[in-house]
């Protein structure tokens, strides 16, 4: 039988000690993780949090958040090695952090079979790219990006993509997403240096990012070196 406790609390802007947070039935170590997470987020504004305790995990739900950056998600993920995943729920407009409890017994992991038909997803992605006005040089990148979104929404609701272009600089806005987690965003980020400024707007349920294949000369922060030509 699982023990389920749900509690609602306001996270103050500056938290000095986790003892102040009245969290019943939460072990001290878990309390510290929750406190550190809230402290990381407290700079962004007021947050409402609630949690549910299960025998092997804790689900920490953070609501009343309006915007989130990928860098902030990274910071949250790095708080503890026991943070399994961070899910952004666009429908409920909240963020759910899955904290695994420390257990001595070795767990047997059952790998789930891929739900997505990879060939069909790739074909649909390339069809999407070729139908639209994307430069030949950028088609491969966009096929890879859109293939990911096809895979993530395969048996769910189709997401909506808005794309604004200026040369080879693209502004991508993804709407109608039900949820997305940190690990998925990480795969998107790890695709290459051309994906940047990943931003999540929970209020309007939009995931936005820039895709740029070139660097502007003025953006580079390298010091100027004077060269003498003889």
């Amino acid at each position: 039988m699982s023990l389920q406790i749900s509690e609602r609390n306001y996270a103050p802007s500056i938290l000095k000690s986790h003892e102040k947070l009245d969290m019943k039935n939460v072990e001290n170590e878990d309390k510290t993780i929750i406190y550190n997470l809230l402290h990381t987020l407290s700079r962004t504004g007021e947050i409402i949090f609630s949690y549910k305790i299960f025998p092997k995990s804790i689900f920490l739900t953070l609501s009343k958040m309006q915007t989130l950056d990928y860098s902030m998600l990274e910071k949250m993920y790095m708080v503890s090695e026991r943070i399994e995943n961070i899910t952004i729920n666009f429908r409920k407009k909240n963020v759910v952090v899955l904290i695994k409890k420390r257990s001595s017994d070795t767990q047997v992991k059952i790998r789930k079979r891929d739900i997505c038909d990879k060939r069909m997803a790739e074909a649909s992605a390339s069809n999407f790219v070729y139908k639209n006005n994307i430069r030949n040089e950028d088609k491969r990148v966009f096929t890879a990006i859109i293939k990911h979104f096809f895979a993530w929404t395969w048996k769910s609701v189709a997401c909506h993509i808005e794309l604004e272009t200026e040369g080879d600089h693209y502004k991508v806005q993804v709407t109608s997403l039900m949820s997305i987690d940190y690990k998925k965003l990480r795969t998107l980020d790890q695709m290459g240096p051309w994906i940047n400024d990943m931003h999540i707007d929970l209020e309007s349920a939009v995931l936005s990012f820039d895709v740029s294949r070139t660097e502007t000369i003025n953006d580079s922060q390298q010091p100027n070196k004077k060269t003498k030509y003889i």
Partner: protein
Amino acid sequence: MQKSYRNGWKIVLVYRCFVKDINMSLLTYKYETEKKSLDTFVKQATARFLDKNLDLDCVGPLTKTPGLLFELSNVYETTDDEMQQMKKIFYDIGARFVSMDINSMTQTVYFSVETQSAHKRSFCTGLYKCVPPLPIVFCIVLCLYKYQSGTMPLVS
């Protein structure tokens, strides 16, 4: 517009005008052909659920097959019979396949409903299957020609 300054001198003025190019859903089928039937399906389903005092919400079209995802929120207690009855409503309207997903964390039930495709295949669509491959056609033509001219090696 981007401005950059160097040693107090304005050197570059870049005007960034983004052109809205793409605004579409990621679907593996043609939504335009299915739109009408999906809209009527949503109307029928919501009306049937409202008759039972249940507020059904349509989330959007499914990615893989023509169909819709429905959401029933604030479900705190339910039985297997009730869930089967809800499924039956979708089948009565004309759903091809209904799958159910219960999210106990958010007290929400999701119904993934695959509908019959409105796109009807034309008479000529399957005709290409009756045509044999080109090399075989060539062989048949050659055999007929040789048979007519009497030089068929097999027929003596």
